[in-house]
Protein backbone atom coordinates (compact mmCIF):
# COMPACT_ATOMS: atom_id res chain seq x y z
CA UNK A 1 0.00 0.00 0.00
CA UNK A 2 0.91 3.65 -0.30
CA UNK A 3 3.29 4.89 2.37
CA UNK A 4 2.47 7.95 4.43
CA UNK A 5 5.14 9.55 6.57
CA UNK A 6 4.42 11.30 9.83
CA UNK A 7 6.47 14.48 9.63
CA UNK A 8 5.92 15.14 13.33
CA UNK A 9 3.08 15.07 15.83
CA UNK A 10 1.28 18.39 16.13
CA UNK A 11 -2.19 19.51 17.15
CA UNK A 12 -4.82 20.35 14.54
CA UNK A 13 -5.78 23.53 16.41
CA UNK A 14 -2.31 24.86 15.59
CA UNK A 15 -3.24 24.31 11.95
CA UNK A 16 -6.19 26.62 12.55
CA UNK A 17 -3.93 29.23 14.16
CA UNK A 18 -1.46 29.01 11.25
CA UNK A 19 -4.30 29.34 8.75
CA UNK A 20 -5.68 32.38 10.55
CA UNK A 21 -2.26 34.02 10.65
CA UNK A 22 -2.00 33.61 6.90
CA UNK A 23 -5.57 34.86 6.34
CA UNK A 24 -4.77 37.89 8.49
CA UNK A 25 -2.11 38.80 5.97
CA UNK A 26 -3.97 37.92 2.78
CA UNK A 27 -7.66 38.62 3.33
CA UNK A 28 -8.54 41.99 4.83
CA UNK A 29 -12.18 41.03 5.34
CA UNK A 30 -11.36 38.20 7.72
CA UNK A 31 -12.07 39.03 11.36
CA UNK A 32 -11.47 36.75 14.35
CA UNK A 33 -13.78 36.55 17.36
CA UNK A 34 -12.87 34.71 20.51
CA UNK A 35 -14.61 33.92 23.79
CA UNK A 36 -11.69 34.14 26.23
CA UNK A 37 -9.70 31.32 24.64
CA UNK A 38 -7.17 33.12 22.46
CA UNK A 39 -4.30 30.84 23.41
CA UNK A 40 -6.34 27.65 23.18
CA UNK A 41 -7.41 28.58 19.66
CA UNK A 42 -3.85 29.61 18.71
CA UNK A 43 -4.98 33.08 17.72
CA UNK A 44 -2.17 35.03 19.41
CA UNK A 45 -0.33 35.70 16.16
CA UNK A 46 -3.48 36.87 14.39
CA UNK A 47 -4.29 39.16 17.30
CA UNK A 48 -0.78 40.60 17.40
CA UNK A 49 -0.66 41.32 13.70
CA UNK A 50 -4.29 42.49 13.32
CA UNK A 51 -5.44 44.02 16.60
CA UNK A 52 -8.24 45.98 14.88
CA UNK A 53 -9.63 42.77 13.36
CA UNK A 54 -9.46 40.70 16.52
CA UNK A 55 -12.50 40.84 18.82
CA UNK A 56 -12.27 39.60 22.37
CA UNK A 57 -15.91 38.92 23.21
CA UNK A 58 -15.38 37.53 26.70
CA UNK A 59 -17.08 34.48 28.17
CA UNK A 60 -20.28 35.07 26.25
CA UNK A 61 -20.65 32.64 23.39
CA UNK A 62 -24.25 33.49 22.48
CA UNK A 63 -23.27 37.13 22.05
CA UNK A 64 -20.25 36.07 19.99
CA UNK A 65 -22.44 34.18 17.51
CA UNK A 66 -24.81 37.14 17.17
CA UNK A 67 -21.99 39.64 16.73
CA UNK A 68 -20.45 37.39 14.10
CA UNK A 69 -23.77 37.26 12.23
CA UNK A 70 -24.01 41.06 12.39
CA UNK A 71 -20.47 41.59 11.14
CA UNK A 72 -21.26 39.78 7.91
CA UNK A 73 -23.65 42.67 7.25
CA UNK A 74 -20.99 44.98 5.89
CA UNK A 75 -18.96 42.29 4.15
CA UNK A 76 -16.76 40.96 6.94
CA UNK A 77 -15.90 37.25 7.15
CA UNK A 78 -16.07 36.40 10.87
CA UNK A 79 -14.32 33.33 12.30
CA UNK A 80 -15.63 32.52 15.78
CA UNK A 81 -13.39 30.60 18.13
CA UNK A 82 -14.10 28.57 21.24
CA UNK A 83 -14.24 24.93 22.33
CA UNK A 84 -16.47 22.70 20.18
CA UNK A 85 -18.91 22.16 23.03
CA UNK A 86 -19.48 25.89 23.44
CA UNK A 87 -19.41 26.42 19.65
CA UNK A 88 -22.42 24.22 19.06
CA UNK A 89 -24.67 22.90 21.81
CA UNK A 90 -24.41 25.99 23.98
CA UNK A 91 -25.37 28.32 21.14
CA UNK A 92 -27.50 26.14 18.91
CA UNK A 93 -30.43 28.53 18.76
CA UNK A 94 -28.19 31.51 18.00
CA UNK A 95 -26.50 29.59 15.18
CA UNK A 96 -29.84 28.33 13.91
CA UNK A 97 -31.63 31.69 13.73
CA UNK A 98 -28.99 34.37 13.33
CA UNK A 99 -26.48 32.40 11.20
CA UNK A 100 -27.94 29.38 9.39
CA UNK A 101 -31.54 30.50 8.78
CA UNK A 102 -30.29 34.01 8.06
CA UNK A 103 -27.72 32.61 5.60
CA UNK A 104 -24.79 34.47 7.15
CA UNK A 105 -21.20 33.97 6.06
CA UNK A 106 -19.90 32.98 9.50
CA UNK A 107 -17.15 30.41 10.05
CA UNK A 108 -17.74 28.58 13.33
CA UNK A 109 -14.33 27.26 14.31
CA UNK A 110 -14.33 24.73 17.09
CA UNK A 111 -11.35 23.41 18.96
CA UNK A 112 -11.07 20.54 21.45
CA UNK A 113 -13.71 18.57 19.59
CA UNK A 114 -14.40 14.93 20.36
CA UNK A 115 -13.06 12.80 23.14
CA UNK A 116 -9.35 13.56 23.00
CA UNK A 117 -9.52 16.82 24.91
CA UNK A 118 -8.69 14.36 27.63
CA UNK A 119 -8.25 15.28 31.25
CA UNK A 120 -10.85 18.07 31.31
CA UNK A 121 -13.50 15.39 31.03
CA UNK A 122 -16.99 15.14 29.62
CA UNK A 123 -18.20 18.71 30.29
CA UNK A 124 -15.53 20.03 27.94
CA UNK A 125 -15.66 17.23 25.38
CA UNK A 126 -18.35 16.90 22.76
CA UNK A 127 -19.33 13.87 20.74
CA UNK A 128 -22.55 15.29 19.30
CA UNK A 129 -21.35 18.38 17.44
CA UNK A 130 -21.15 16.92 13.93
CA UNK A 131 -24.74 15.77 14.24
CA UNK A 132 -25.95 19.09 15.61
CA UNK A 133 -24.29 21.05 12.83
CA UNK A 134 -25.07 18.76 9.92
CA UNK A 135 -28.76 18.91 10.81
CA UNK A 136 -28.82 22.63 10.04
CA UNK A 137 -29.92 23.35 6.47
CA UNK A 138 -27.16 25.10 4.52
CA UNK A 139 -24.41 24.37 7.03
CA UNK A 140 -21.12 22.98 5.74
CA UNK A 141 -19.36 20.62 8.18
CA UNK A 142 -15.60 20.04 7.97
CA UNK A 143 -13.39 17.82 10.14
CA UNK A 144 -9.78 17.80 8.88
CA UNK A 145 -7.30 15.10 9.84
CA UNK A 146 -3.99 16.80 10.62
CA UNK A 147 -2.16 20.11 10.98
CA UNK A 148 -1.58 20.66 7.27
CA UNK A 149 -5.14 19.86 6.32
CA UNK A 150 -6.60 22.04 9.07
CA UNK A 151 -4.49 24.96 7.92
CA UNK A 152 -5.56 24.41 4.31
CA UNK A 153 -9.22 24.09 5.34
CA UNK A 154 -9.09 27.32 7.36
CA UNK A 155 -7.79 29.19 4.34
CA UNK A 156 -10.25 27.53 1.97
CA UNK A 157 -13.40 28.33 3.94
CA UNK A 158 -12.63 32.05 3.83
CA UNK A 159 -13.13 31.87 0.06
CA UNK A 160 -16.40 29.96 0.35
CA UNK A 161 -19.55 32.02 0.90
CA UNK A 162 -21.90 30.54 3.51
CA UNK A 163 -21.91 29.23 7.07
CA UNK A 164 -19.25 26.64 7.88
CA UNK A 165 -18.54 24.51 10.93
CA UNK A 166 -14.81 23.69 11.16
CA UNK A 167 -13.87 21.13 13.78
CA UNK A 168 -10.42 20.37 15.15
CA UNK A 169 -8.72 19.12 18.29
CA UNK A 170 -6.17 19.61 21.02
CA UNK A 171 -3.88 16.56 21.19
CA UNK A 172 -0.82 16.18 19.01
CA UNK A 173 -1.51 13.80 16.14
CA UNK A 174 0.62 12.69 13.17
CA UNK A 175 1.00 15.29 10.44
CA UNK A 176 1.15 13.42 7.16
CA UNK A 177 -0.80 15.18 4.40
CA UNK A 178 1.21 17.28 1.93
CA UNK A 179 1.66 20.88 3.06
CA UNK A 180 0.76 22.13 -0.41
CA UNK A 181 -2.36 19.98 -0.85
CA UNK A 182 -5.27 22.09 -2.03
CA UNK A 183 -8.34 21.83 0.20
CA UNK A 184 -11.49 21.24 -1.81
CA UNK A 185 -14.68 21.46 0.27
CA UNK A 186 -16.80 18.37 -0.30
CA UNK A 187 -14.15 16.38 -2.16
CA UNK A 188 -13.06 13.10 -0.57
CA UNK A 189 -9.38 12.16 -0.67
CA UNK A 190 -8.43 8.65 -1.75
CA UNK A 191 -5.51 7.66 0.48
CA UNK A 192 -5.14 4.06 -0.54
CA UNK A 193 -6.83 1.95 -3.17
CA UNK A 194 -8.00 -1.52 -2.17
CA UNK A 195 -10.50 -4.21 -3.06
CA UNK A 196 -11.72 -6.02 0.05
CA UNK A 197 -13.08 -3.33 2.34
CA UNK A 198 -13.58 0.45 2.28
CA UNK A 199 -12.47 2.34 5.38
CA UNK A 200 -13.98 5.80 5.51
CA UNK A 201 -12.46 7.97 8.23
CA UNK A 202 -12.55 11.57 9.37
CA UNK A 203 -10.46 13.76 11.68
CA UNK A 204 -8.09 12.11 14.13
CA UNK A 205 -9.21 8.66 12.97
CA UNK A 206 -7.74 9.02 9.46
CA UNK A 207 -4.20 8.22 10.59
CA UNK A 208 -5.58 5.29 12.59
CA UNK A 209 -7.31 4.07 9.41
CA UNK A 210 -3.98 4.10 7.56
CA UNK A 211 -2.34 2.17 10.37
CA UNK A 212 -5.20 -0.32 10.27
CA UNK A 213 -4.85 -0.73 6.50
CA UNK A 214 -1.16 -1.58 6.99
CA UNK A 215 -2.03 -4.26 9.52
CA UNK A 216 -4.78 -5.62 7.28
CA UNK A 217 -2.31 -5.81 4.38
CA UNK A 218 -0.13 -8.04 6.55
CA UNK A 219 -3.15 -10.31 6.94
CA UNK A 220 -3.72 -10.41 3.21
CA UNK A 221 -6.67 -8.00 3.24
CA UNK A 222 -6.69 -5.12 0.76
CA UNK A 223 -8.28 -2.02 2.31
CA UNK A 224 -9.31 1.12 0.49
CA UNK A 225 -8.88 4.17 2.73
CA UNK A 226 -10.81 7.38 2.13
CA UNK A 227 -10.36 10.62 4.06
CA UNK A 228 -13.70 12.37 4.38
CA UNK A 229 -12.73 15.81 5.66
CA UNK A 230 -16.08 17.29 4.61
CA UNK A 231 -19.02 15.53 6.22
CA UNK A 232 -21.53 17.90 4.66
CA UNK A 233 -21.76 18.16 1.72
CA UNK A 234 -20.73 14.52 1.57
CA UNK A 235 -18.79 13.22 -1.44
CA UNK A 236 -21.38 10.55 -2.14
CA UNK A 237 -19.92 9.67 -5.52
CA UNK A 238 -16.57 8.66 -4.04
CA UNK A 239 -18.28 6.57 -1.35
CA UNK A 240 -20.68 4.80 -3.71
CA UNK A 241 -17.91 4.07 -6.20
CA UNK A 242 -15.63 2.59 -3.57
CA UNK A 243 -18.23 0.47 -1.80
CA UNK A 244 -19.61 -0.79 -5.11
CA UNK A 245 -16.11 -2.20 -5.63
CA UNK A 246 -15.29 -3.53 -2.14
CA UNK A 247 -18.79 -4.53 -1.08
CA UNK A 248 -18.46 -3.43 2.56
CA UNK A 249 -17.45 -0.45 4.66
CA UNK A 250 -16.08 0.61 8.02
CA UNK A 251 -16.61 4.20 9.10
CA UNK A 252 -14.36 5.74 11.74
CA UNK A 253 -14.85 8.96 13.63
CA UNK A 254 -14.30 10.57 17.02
CA UNK A 255 -18.01 11.20 17.54
CA UNK A 256 -21.14 9.44 18.67
CA UNK A 257 -22.32 6.87 16.11
CA UNK A 258 -25.67 8.70 16.23
CA UNK A 259 -25.57 11.73 13.99
CA UNK A 260 -22.00 11.39 12.78
CA UNK A 261 -20.17 10.52 9.56
CA UNK A 262 -21.20 6.88 9.83
CA UNK A 263 -24.88 7.72 9.66
CA UNK A 264 -24.36 9.96 6.65
CA UNK A 265 -22.48 7.17 4.87
CA UNK A 266 -25.16 4.62 5.83
CA UNK A 267 -27.89 6.79 4.35
CA UNK A 268 -25.94 7.27 1.15
CA UNK A 269 -25.37 3.55 0.76
CA UNK A 270 -28.92 2.60 1.76
CA UNK A 271 -30.42 4.53 -1.14
CA UNK A 272 -27.68 3.71 -3.67
CA UNK A 273 -25.72 0.55 -3.02
CA UNK A 274 -26.67 -1.12 0.28
CA UNK A 275 -23.70 -2.82 1.92
CA UNK A 276 -22.66 -4.18 5.32
CA UNK A 277 -21.24 -1.42 7.54
CA UNK A 278 -19.45 -1.32 10.88
CA UNK A 279 -19.20 1.86 12.93
CA UNK A 280 -16.06 2.93 14.75
CA UNK A 281 -17.48 5.67 16.95
CA UNK A 282 -18.52 6.19 20.54
CA UNK A 283 -21.56 4.15 21.48
CA UNK A 284 -24.06 6.76 22.62
CA UNK A 285 -22.07 7.73 25.69
CA UNK A 286 -20.47 10.76 27.24
CA UNK A 287 -16.70 10.89 27.64
CA UNK A 288 -14.61 11.08 30.81
CA UNK A 289 -11.20 12.23 32.02
CA UNK A 290 -8.05 10.50 30.84
CA UNK A 291 -5.14 11.00 28.50
CA UNK A 292 -6.08 11.12 24.82
CA UNK A 293 -4.36 7.77 24.21
CA UNK A 294 -6.17 6.13 27.13
CA UNK A 295 -9.51 7.45 25.94
CA UNK A 296 -8.95 6.31 22.35
CA UNK A 297 -8.22 2.84 23.69
CA UNK A 298 -11.06 2.68 26.18
CA UNK A 299 -13.65 3.89 23.67
CA UNK A 300 -12.10 1.79 20.88
CA UNK A 301 -11.31 4.61 18.50
CA UNK A 302 -8.03 3.24 17.18
CA UNK A 303 -6.32 1.19 14.49
CA UNK A 304 -6.86 -2.09 16.33
CA UNK A 305 -10.61 -1.47 16.50
CA UNK A 306 -10.71 -0.60 12.79
CA UNK A 307 -8.87 -3.85 11.96
CA UNK A 308 -11.32 -5.87 14.03
CA UNK A 309 -14.32 -4.12 12.44
CA UNK A 310 -12.91 -4.66 8.96
CA UNK A 311 -12.50 -8.38 9.50
CA UNK A 312 -16.02 -8.57 10.87
CA UNK A 313 -17.63 -6.58 8.05
CA UNK A 314 -15.90 -8.62 5.35
CA UNK A 315 -17.52 -11.74 6.80
CA UNK A 316 -20.92 -10.05 6.54
CA UNK A 317 -20.60 -9.52 2.77
Amino acid sequence: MKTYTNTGNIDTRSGYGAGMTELGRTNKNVVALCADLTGSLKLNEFEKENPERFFQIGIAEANMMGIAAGMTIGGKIPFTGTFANFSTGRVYDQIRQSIAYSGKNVKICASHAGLTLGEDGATHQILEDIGLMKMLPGMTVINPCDFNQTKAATIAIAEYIGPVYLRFGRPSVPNFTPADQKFEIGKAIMLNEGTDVTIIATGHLVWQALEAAKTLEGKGISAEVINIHTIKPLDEEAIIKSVAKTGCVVTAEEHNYLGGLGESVARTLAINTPAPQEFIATQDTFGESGTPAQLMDKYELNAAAIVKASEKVIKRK
Partner: protein
Amino acid sequence: MADLKYLNDLVVQVRRDILRMVHNVNSGHPGGSLGCTEFMVALYSEIMERKEGFDMDGINEDLFFLSNGHISPVFYSVLARCGYFPVEELGTFRLIDSRLQGHPTTHEGLPGVRVASGSLGQGMSVAIGAALAKKLNNDTHLVFSLHGDGELQEGQNWEAIMYAGAKGVDNLIATVDRNGQQIDGSTKEVLCLGDVGEKFRVFGWDVLHIENGNNLEQVIKGLNEAKSRTGKGKPVCVIMTTEMGNGVDYMMHTHAWHGKAPNDDQLENALAQNPETLGDY
Protein backbone atom coordinates in the same frame (compact mmCIF):
# COMPACT_ATOMS: atom_id res chain seq x y z
CA MET B 1 -38.95 67.28 9.04
CA ALA B 2 -41.50 65.70 6.77
CA ASP B 3 -45.03 67.06 6.89
CA LEU B 4 -46.45 66.06 10.28
CA LYS B 5 -49.90 65.48 8.83
CA TYR B 6 -48.47 63.02 6.32
CA LEU B 7 -46.59 61.19 9.07
CA ASN B 8 -49.72 61.00 11.22
CA ASP B 9 -51.68 59.72 8.22
CA LEU B 10 -48.98 57.10 7.72
CA VAL B 11 -49.27 56.03 11.37
CA VAL B 12 -53.02 55.52 10.99
CA GLN B 13 -52.61 53.66 7.72
CA VAL B 14 -49.96 51.38 9.22
CA ARG B 15 -52.40 50.65 12.07
CA ARG B 16 -55.03 49.63 9.54
CA ASP B 17 -52.49 47.42 7.77
CA ILE B 18 -51.57 45.68 11.03
CA LEU B 19 -55.18 45.03 11.96
CA ARG B 20 -56.16 43.77 8.52
CA MET B 21 -53.06 41.57 8.16
CA VAL B 22 -53.61 39.85 11.49
CA HIS B 23 -57.35 39.53 10.97
CA ASN B 24 -56.89 38.03 7.49
CA VAL B 25 -54.99 34.99 8.79
CA ASN B 26 -56.52 34.97 12.27
CA SER B 27 -53.03 34.92 13.77
CA GLY B 28 -50.18 37.28 14.58
CA HIS B 29 -49.29 39.91 17.14
CA PRO B 30 -51.31 43.15 16.95
CA GLY B 31 -50.68 44.50 20.48
CA GLY B 32 -46.95 45.19 20.37
CA SER B 33 -47.16 46.12 16.69
CA LEU B 34 -49.70 48.88 17.37
CA GLY B 35 -47.65 50.11 20.31
CA CYS B 36 -44.57 50.58 18.10
CA THR B 37 -46.28 52.18 15.12
CA GLU B 38 -45.17 55.75 15.83
CA PHE B 39 -41.61 54.56 16.45
CA MET B 40 -41.35 52.57 13.24
CA VAL B 41 -42.91 55.32 11.14
CA ALA B 42 -40.62 57.95 12.68
CA LEU B 43 -37.55 55.77 12.27
CA TYR B 44 -38.02 54.92 8.60
CA SER B 45 -39.62 58.20 7.48
CA GLU B 46 -37.68 60.72 9.47
CA ILE B 47 -34.73 59.43 11.45
CA MET B 48 -32.71 56.94 9.42
CA GLU B 49 -30.55 57.92 6.47
CA ARG B 50 -31.46 55.32 3.89
CA LYS B 51 -30.22 54.60 0.38
CA GLU B 52 -32.53 53.90 -2.54
CA GLY B 53 -33.29 50.21 -2.94
CA PHE B 54 -31.96 47.49 -0.70
CA ASP B 55 -28.74 45.58 -0.34
CA MET B 56 -27.74 43.27 2.46
CA ASP B 57 -24.53 45.05 3.49
CA GLY B 58 -26.15 48.48 3.83
CA ILE B 59 -22.87 50.35 3.62
CA ASN B 60 -23.23 54.15 3.77
CA GLU B 61 -26.70 54.08 5.22
CA ASP B 62 -28.25 53.63 8.67
CA LEU B 63 -29.42 50.13 9.57
CA PHE B 64 -32.26 48.82 11.72
CA PHE B 65 -32.59 45.45 13.43
CA LEU B 66 -35.90 44.25 14.86
CA SER B 67 -35.04 41.95 17.74
CA ASN B 68 -38.61 41.24 18.92
CA GLY B 69 -39.58 39.67 15.62
CA HIS B 70 -43.16 38.87 16.60
CA ILE B 71 -44.16 42.48 15.88
CA SER B 72 -43.53 41.72 12.21
CA PRO B 73 -46.86 43.28 11.10
CA VAL B 74 -45.69 46.82 11.90
CA PHE B 75 -42.25 46.10 10.43
CA TYR B 76 -43.67 44.73 7.17
CA SER B 77 -46.21 47.50 6.84
CA VAL B 78 -43.64 50.27 7.34
CA LEU B 79 -41.16 48.58 4.99
CA ALA B 80 -43.83 48.29 2.31
CA ARG B 81 -45.11 51.83 2.84
CA CYS B 82 -41.50 53.08 2.57
CA GLY B 83 -41.01 51.38 -0.77
CA TYR B 84 -39.06 48.21 0.00
CA PHE B 85 -41.67 45.94 -1.59
CA PRO B 86 -45.22 46.28 -2.99
CA VAL B 87 -47.86 47.24 -0.41
CA GLU B 88 -50.22 44.62 -1.91
CA GLU B 89 -47.86 41.93 -0.65
CA LEU B 90 -49.02 42.67 2.91
CA GLY B 91 -52.09 40.59 2.00
CA THR B 92 -49.88 37.47 1.95
CA PHE B 93 -48.78 37.81 5.59
CA ARG B 94 -48.38 34.37 7.21
CA LEU B 95 -49.78 32.58 4.16
CA ILE B 96 -48.13 29.68 2.35
CA ASP B 97 -45.44 30.66 -0.22
CA SER B 98 -45.29 34.22 1.16
CA ARG B 99 -42.11 36.21 1.78
CA LEU B 100 -43.86 37.64 4.85
CA GLN B 101 -43.33 34.85 7.37
CA GLY B 102 -44.89 35.07 10.79
CA HIS B 103 -41.51 36.19 12.05
CA PRO B 104 -39.11 38.04 9.72
CA THR B 105 -36.42 36.14 7.87
CA THR B 106 -33.82 36.72 5.20
CA HIS B 107 -34.58 33.25 3.93
CA GLU B 108 -37.29 34.41 1.54
CA GLY B 109 -35.29 37.38 0.28
CA LEU B 110 -37.68 40.06 1.47
CA PRO B 111 -36.08 43.50 0.90
CA GLY B 112 -35.54 45.35 4.16
CA VAL B 113 -34.82 42.32 6.34
CA ARG B 114 -31.17 41.65 7.20
CA VAL B 115 -31.49 38.95 9.83
CA ALA B 116 -34.11 36.51 11.06
CA SER B 117 -35.70 37.22 14.42
CA GLY B 118 -38.37 35.59 16.49
CA SER B 119 -36.35 33.55 18.91
CA LEU B 120 -35.94 36.41 21.37
CA GLY B 121 -32.81 38.03 22.71
CA GLN B 122 -30.48 37.81 19.71
CA GLY B 123 -31.00 41.13 17.96
CA MET B 124 -28.72 43.30 20.05
CA SER B 125 -25.74 41.03 19.42
CA VAL B 126 -26.40 41.21 15.69
CA ALA B 127 -26.78 44.99 15.84
CA ILE B 128 -23.46 45.25 17.66
CA GLY B 129 -21.81 43.13 14.97
CA ALA B 130 -23.22 45.36 12.25
CA ALA B 131 -22.05 48.44 14.16
CA LEU B 132 -18.53 46.99 14.50
CA ALA B 133 -18.48 46.22 10.76
CA LYS B 134 -19.42 49.85 10.08
CA LYS B 135 -16.47 51.01 12.17
CA LEU B 136 -14.12 48.67 10.26
CA ASN B 137 -15.52 50.03 6.99
CA ASN B 138 -15.05 53.65 8.15
CA ASP B 139 -18.78 54.05 7.61
CA THR B 140 -20.06 56.71 10.01
CA HIS B 141 -23.72 55.74 9.71
CA LEU B 142 -25.67 54.40 12.66
CA VAL B 143 -27.23 51.11 13.68
CA PHE B 144 -30.65 51.12 15.38
CA SER B 145 -32.34 48.22 17.12
CA LEU B 146 -35.66 47.59 18.84
CA HIS B 147 -36.22 45.24 21.77
CA GLY B 148 -39.30 44.33 23.72
CA ASP B 149 -39.04 44.94 27.45
CA GLY B 150 -40.13 41.37 28.22
CA GLU B 151 -37.43 40.27 25.78
CA LEU B 152 -34.80 41.66 28.13
CA GLN B 153 -35.45 38.64 30.34
CA GLU B 154 -33.34 36.68 27.83
CA GLY B 155 -29.78 36.49 29.18
CA GLN B 156 -28.03 37.03 25.86
CA ASN B 157 -29.16 40.66 25.98
CA TRP B 158 -27.04 41.23 29.04
CA GLU B 159 -23.98 39.71 27.41
CA ALA B 160 -24.55 42.15 24.56
CA ILE B 161 -25.30 45.13 26.80
CA MET B 162 -22.10 44.42 28.76
CA TYR B 163 -20.05 44.11 25.58
CA ALA B 164 -21.35 47.28 23.90
CA GLY B 165 -20.80 49.31 27.06
CA ALA B 166 -17.35 47.90 27.81
CA LYS B 167 -16.10 48.25 24.24
CA GLY B 168 -17.69 51.63 23.55
CA VAL B 169 -19.85 50.69 20.57
CA ASP B 170 -20.99 54.30 20.17
CA ASN B 171 -22.61 54.03 16.73
CA LEU B 172 -25.44 51.95 18.15
CA ILE B 173 -28.86 53.15 19.35
CA ALA B 174 -30.79 50.36 21.07
CA THR B 175 -34.44 51.10 21.77
CA VAL B 176 -36.48 49.33 24.42
CA ASP B 177 -40.25 49.22 23.87
CA ARG B 178 -41.33 49.62 27.49
CA ASN B 179 -45.00 48.60 27.30
CA GLY B 180 -44.83 46.59 30.51
CA GLN B 181 -46.70 43.60 29.05
CA GLN B 182 -45.78 40.11 27.96
CA ILE B 183 -47.75 37.00 27.03
CA ASP B 184 -48.53 35.79 30.54
CA GLY B 185 -49.23 39.17 32.09
CA SER B 186 -47.42 42.35 33.06
CA THR B 187 -43.61 42.31 33.13
CA LYS B 188 -43.93 43.23 36.79
CA GLU B 189 -45.83 40.01 37.50
CA VAL B 190 -43.93 37.63 35.25
CA LEU B 191 -40.34 38.67 36.01
CA CYS B 192 -39.93 42.20 37.25
CA LEU B 193 -37.37 44.11 35.16
CA GLY B 194 -36.77 46.86 37.70
CA ASP B 195 -35.24 50.10 36.48
CA VAL B 196 -34.23 49.14 32.94
CA GLY B 197 -32.61 52.49 32.17
CA GLU B 198 -30.47 52.32 35.27
CA LYS B 199 -29.39 48.81 34.36
CA PHE B 200 -28.18 49.99 30.96
CA ARG B 201 -26.49 52.99 32.58
CA VAL B 202 -24.42 50.93 34.99
CA PHE B 203 -23.33 48.78 32.06
CA GLY B 204 -21.80 51.92 30.51
CA TRP B 205 -24.57 53.15 28.23
CA ASP B 206 -25.87 56.66 27.68
CA VAL B 207 -29.59 56.39 28.44
CA LEU B 208 -32.50 58.63 27.54
CA HIS B 209 -36.25 58.26 27.87
CA ILE B 210 -39.17 58.95 25.60
CA GLU B 211 -42.05 59.44 28.01
CA ASN B 212 -44.81 58.93 25.46
CA GLY B 213 -43.70 56.61 22.72
CA ASN B 214 -47.09 56.92 21.05
CA ASN B 215 -46.66 60.64 20.47
CA LEU B 216 -45.03 61.03 17.08
CA GLU B 217 -43.41 64.39 17.79
CA GLN B 218 -41.97 63.14 21.08
CA VAL B 219 -40.59 60.05 19.37
CA ILE B 220 -38.93 62.07 16.62
CA LYS B 221 -37.49 64.51 19.14
CA GLY B 222 -36.20 61.69 21.34
CA LEU B 223 -34.61 59.79 18.49
CA ASN B 224 -32.93 62.93 17.15
CA GLU B 225 -31.61 63.55 20.64
CA ALA B 226 -30.31 59.97 20.71
CA LYS B 227 -28.56 60.51 17.38
CA SER B 228 -26.84 63.61 18.74
CA ARG B 229 -25.40 61.53 21.58
CA THR B 230 -23.71 58.94 19.33
CA GLY B 231 -19.97 59.01 18.63
CA LYS B 232 -19.11 59.92 22.19
CA GLY B 233 -17.67 56.65 23.42
CA LYS B 234 -20.89 55.09 24.71
CA PRO B 235 -23.71 53.14 23.08
CA VAL B 236 -27.05 54.92 23.39
CA CYS B 237 -30.16 53.35 24.89
CA VAL B 238 -33.63 54.80 24.38
CA ILE B 239 -36.27 53.66 26.85
CA MET B 240 -39.58 54.34 25.16
CA THR B 241 -42.79 54.01 27.13
CA THR B 242 -45.62 52.81 24.91
CA GLU B 243 -49.10 51.43 25.21
CA MET B 244 -49.63 47.96 23.80
CA GLY B 245 -52.52 48.02 21.33
CA ASN B 246 -52.33 51.80 20.96
CA GLY B 247 -54.99 53.32 18.70
CA VAL B 248 -57.61 50.65 19.38
CA ASP B 249 -59.36 51.32 22.67
CA TYR B 250 -60.29 47.76 23.55
CA MET B 251 -56.75 46.49 22.89
CA MET B 252 -55.12 48.95 25.31
CA HIS B 253 -54.31 48.55 29.01
CA THR B 254 -54.17 44.76 28.77
CA HIS B 255 -51.80 42.02 27.63
CA ALA B 256 -54.73 40.16 26.08
CA TRP B 257 -53.95 41.31 22.53
CA HIS B 258 -50.28 40.36 22.55
CA GLY B 259 -50.85 37.51 20.15
CA LYS B 260 -54.55 37.42 19.29
CA ALA B 261 -56.37 38.45 16.13
CA PRO B 262 -59.62 40.45 16.11
CA ASN B 263 -62.77 38.80 14.77
CA ASP B 264 -64.88 40.43 12.04
CA ASP B 265 -66.83 42.71 14.37
CA GLN B 266 -63.76 43.65 16.37
CA LEU B 267 -61.88 44.47 13.17
CA GLU B 268 -64.67 46.74 11.98
CA ASN B 269 -64.67 48.50 15.33
CA ALA B 270 -60.88 48.93 15.27
CA LEU B 271 -60.83 50.20 11.70
CA ALA B 272 -63.58 52.68 12.51
CA GLN B 273 -61.26 54.12 15.15
CA ASN B 274 -58.57 54.50 12.47
CA PRO B 275 -60.21 55.77 9.26
CA GLU B 276 -58.40 55.12 5.99
CA THR B 277 -55.81 57.78 5.07
CA LEU B 278 -53.33 56.71 2.40
CA GLY B 279 -55.31 53.82 0.91
CA ASP B 280 -55.69 50.21 2.01
CA TYR B 281 -53.69 47.50 0.24
